[in-house]
C-alpha cells in the first residue's frame, strides 16, 4: 500500500470534480435555493418560520448531495476509462484498489466541500432570520442551534460517502455511465426504504417471508438513520439521541463504506479497461 499514490489520485479526482460543470451548476442551484428559502413559505411565522427554512435547507442538501454523489462519481470514473487515462495510470506500478481508493477519497472530499459550503450558508440564513424574529418579538432566547446544523451536514456527508462507495461498486461492474447512474439511484431508493424490510421481517407469517425480510434488512443498509433533520437545528429540546447513537452511526458508515469499497475492488480487479 502506498498512501502517497492514493492521496495523489484523490487530489486529481478532487481537482477534476471541482472543475466539473455539473458540480458548479448544482452547487449554485443549492445555494440559490438556500438563499431564497424564505420566499417559498407564505403563512408560517415565528419558530415554525425558522423550521420551514431549516427543513427546506436540509432537504436541498440531501437531495442535491445524493445527485452529486452518483453523477460525479459515475462521470469521473467513466471519463478516465473512456479517455484512456486509466490505462496510462494503471499500466504503472499502482494497484487497482489504490486507483479506486483515490476516486473514493477525491469525490468524498468534494462532497465535504459541498456540505460545508451549504451548511455555512444555511447557518447564515438561519441566524439572519433568527435575529429578525427576536427583534420583532423582543425576546433574547436563542432559537437556532448552529452546531446542530453542522452536525446534520456532517451526518449527510457520512451518508454520501456510503453512496459514493456504492456508486463505485456499480460502476466497477457496469459498462456505461448511464446504467451506473440508473442502478445507483434505484439502490439508494431501496436503502432509504430499508425499514420496510424490517416490517416484512416482523410481520411475516410464513418462514420464507421472515427469512426474506431478514436477508433484506441485513444486506441493504438503512440510509434513513442519517435523516435526523426533524431532531436537529432548533433549540426546542428535541432529543436526537445519545453519544452512543452517534457512535453506532459512525460504525454503520465505516462498515458499509468498507463493504461497498471492497466489493468495488473485487469487481474492478479483473475488469478489462
Amino acid at each position: 500500500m502506498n498512501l502517497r499514490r492514493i492521496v495523489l489520485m484523490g487530489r486529481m479526482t478532487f481537482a477534476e470534480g471541482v472543475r466539473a460543470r455539473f458540480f458548479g451548476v448544482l452547487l449554485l442551484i443549492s445555494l440559490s435555493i438556500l438563499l431564497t428559502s424564505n420566499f417559498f413559505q407564505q403563512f408560517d411565522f415565528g419558530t415554525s418560520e425558522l423550521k420551514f427554512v431549516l427543513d427546506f435547507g436540509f432537504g436541498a442538501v440531501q437531495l442535491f448531495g445524493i445527485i452529486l454523489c452518483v453523477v460525479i462519481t459515475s462521470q469521473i470514473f467513466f471519463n478516465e476509462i473512456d479517455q484512456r487515462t486509466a490505462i496510462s495510470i494503471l499500466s504503472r506500478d499502482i494497484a487497482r484498489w489504490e486507483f479506486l481508493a483515490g476516486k473514493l477519497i477525491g469525490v468524498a472530499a468534494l462532497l465535504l466541500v459541498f456540505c460545508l459550503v451549504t451548511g455555512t450558508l444555511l447557518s447564515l440564513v438561519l441566524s439572519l432570520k433568527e435575529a429578525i424574529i427576536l427583534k420583532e418579538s423582543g425576546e433574547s432566547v436563542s432559537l437556532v442551534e448552529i452546531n446542530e446544523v453542522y452536525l446534520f451536514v456532517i451526518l449527510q456527508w457520512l451518508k454520501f460517502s456510503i453512496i459514493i462507495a456504492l456508486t463505485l461498486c456499480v460502476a466497477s461492474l457496469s459498462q456505461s455511465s448511464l446504467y451506473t447512474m440508473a442502478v445507483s439511484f434505484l439502490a439508494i431508493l431501496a436503502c432509504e426504504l430499508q425499514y420496510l424490510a424490517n416490517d416484512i421481517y416482523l410481520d411475516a407469517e410464513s418462514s420464507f417471508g421472515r427469512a426474506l425480510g431478514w436477508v433484506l434488512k441485513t444486506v441493504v443498509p438503512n440510509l434513513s438513520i442519517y435523516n435526523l433533520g426533524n431532531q436537529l437545528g432548533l433549540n426546542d429540546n428535541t432529543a436526537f439521541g445519545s453519544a452512543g447513537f452517534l457512535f453506532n452511526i459512525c460504525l454503520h458508515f465505516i462498515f458499509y463504506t468498507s463493504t461497498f469499497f471492497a466489493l468495488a475492488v473485487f469487481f474492478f480487479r479483473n475488469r478489462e479497461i
Partner: protein
Amino acid sequence: MDIPAIELIHLTRDFSIGLRNYKLRALQQVDLIIPSGQIFGLLGPNGSGKSTTIKIILGLIPPSDGQCQVFGKPAGSRESRARIGYLPENPVFYRFLSGRELVRFFASISGMSGDTLNTATESALDTVGMTEHADRRVRTYSKGMLQRIGLAQALVHDPDIIVLDEPMSGLDPVGTSEFISILHDLCARGKTILLASHLLARVEEVCDNIAILNKGQLVQSGTVESIVEDNDISNLWVRGLTSPKEIALRQFLKDADLELLECKTGRRSLDDVFLDALHENKKVPPS
C-alpha cells in the same frame, strides 16, 4: 544470450461475451520475441489482436493461456510494469493541468519525489521538445503537442520499453517526422520501442522488426527487409536514361533473357516534397 525485452509464449486470450458466456478468441497461440534496443512494429487490421496483446504486455489483462514475459519477469508484475512506459492512442489527459504538471503527476504516480522527480520531469520534457510549452494548459495543445506530452509522461520514469499505440495517427507530416526523429533518438539510447500502427509506410521507414497479426494469429514476423524483399525482382535506379539508351537497354535485357517488368520516371514521395517545401520556405525571410 540477451534476455529479450518482451517474449510471448503460446499466448492465448479469450473474452466471454453475453450471458451465455460465448467465448471470443482474441489471440491464439502467439509466439513472439521482441529483442531489446529495437523499434518493433506490431501490425494488423482492426480486430486482429494488437490492442489485446498490448494490454497483456502492460499487465492490464491476464492471458487465458500461455505466458508473456517482460525482461524475463511475468507481465503485470511490479518489476515488469516499472520498466514499461505507455502512450495510448489519442490520449486525452487531465486537460486542466499544464504539460509540466501532467508529467510531474505521472512521475509521482511512478513513485518519484523531490529532486529526482524534478530532474526526470525536465529531462522528459526536453527529450520530446516540450520544455518551451510546458507551462501551457494541456487543453490548449495541438494534436502533435499532445502526442509529445503523452510521450513525455511515458518516458518520465525512464522505462526500458516504450509501448506506443498508433502514435502517429492524426499527425501532419511535420509532426510525424519530428516524432520519428524522437523515436530514433530513444532507440539510440538503448530503449526498446513497441509500436502498433496502421501507417504501413511509416512503420516500414522506422521499424527494425515487424510482426503481422490477423484474426488473433501471428501470420508473419521478422526484419522489415526480410519481409518486404522479393528475390525474384531487382530494382535498377538509373540517371540520364534517354530514349535511345532505353531502347538499347531493353534490347540488352532481352538478349540476356531478362524480363523488364516496368520502366518509369523516378518519383519522390509526397511527404518528402511537402517537408522540403516547408524547409525551403523557412529559409526565405518574410518580405
